[in-house]
């Protein structure tokens, strides 16, 4: 049971990579990339988790209460922001590819270039 979160990480990473490799559409490919990246959120949050611990907000809990690690949660926030920006830039490039090549199939774009 204790390996289950890490198994989810491996699964998300691999299933996202599979989607990227077999993709027929640039937007689909970008969504697959965000799936790959979401594995890193699960990994970070899973590392910082403590059984029975509270969220690291000392509003209604006594100061001695064990809480989950706030550092990895802050890192996850960074991760989410980076993912959103990467997706935005790649989507802009996908729009550009559609205009320039008239297709959003990665295979066809490669064929046109070669």
């Amino acid at each position, binding site marked *: *049971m*204790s*390996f*289950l*979160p*890490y*198994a989810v*990480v*491996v699964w998300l*990473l*691999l299933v996202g*990579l*599979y989607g990227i*490799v*077999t993709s027929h559409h*640039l*937007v689909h490919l970008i969504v697959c990339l965000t799936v790959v990246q979401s594995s890193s959120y699960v990994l970070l949050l*899973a*590392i*910082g*988790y*403590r*059984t*029975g611990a509270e*969220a*690291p*907000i*000392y*509003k209604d809990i006594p*100061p001695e209460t064990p*809480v*989950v*690690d*706030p*550092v*990895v*949660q*802050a890192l996850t*926030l*960074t991760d*989410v*922001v*980076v993912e*959103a*920006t*990467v997706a*935005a*830039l790649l*989507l*802009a*490039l*996908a*729009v*550009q*590819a*559609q*205009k320039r090549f008239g297709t*959003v199939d990665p*295979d066809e774009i490669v064929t046109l270039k070669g």
Partner: protein
Amino acid sequence: MSRRVRSGLFLVAAAVFAFLLIWGLLGLPDFGDYRGPYGDVLQQVALPERHTPQVVGATTFDYRGFDTLGEEFILFAAALGAVVLLRQQRGEEKDEEEEQDHPADRQRRDTSDALRLLGLGLVGPLVVLGLYVIVHGHLTPGGGFQGGVVLASAFVLVHVAGRYLILQRVRPMPLVEITEAGGAAGFVLVGLGGMIAGSTFLFNFLPLGEPGTLLSAGMIPLLNISVGLEVAGAVVLLFSEFLEQWLLRGRGGGA
């Protein structure tokens, strides 16, 4: 390389990769059994040192404040990059734009009354919620990044409600750009305030206040507000650029 060969190659590589990954992850501490030194230290010092009960916020905007500055500028640069990429396209297609200014009208016809009413009704509450999440970032879960996105989604709702023309009025582009740039600059200026106060960059130079009240935690609320402005501006900017592409193309399909 054919699609079949590539898929086969990927499956072999993925199997090897999965094995290595699981092997590596097995070396991590058991799930739920983590004793990170940094997390423990922060939990003990955040409330006495920064007067904020929200340790994640204190980590993001104070102890890791310099990293968050970089993070904010990643977003700024990405929004800028997307605008540059899409703006070039707009120049190329200028004639087409003048021919077809009706997709907005067509979209209005496609929108049902229920969706329009619900969308417009939710705009006000969402703006309030976004501002609330931003200014309470040092007290409750949330903060500039989350609240900024909520705030931007209010503007997206105006579009969902099918009023592109209204959207252009409530979303004047220079104002959005100034908001975004002002948010990014605000973070740096607050950081420089620490240097003016005679210490290091991002040194907390403001009174810490009573823990748990709105005006507390020193400069963390100010940093939250500047990040909130930056994120809201960037998301609205990105959304408008992509929306403009959609309108240029005259239909929702394609890229």
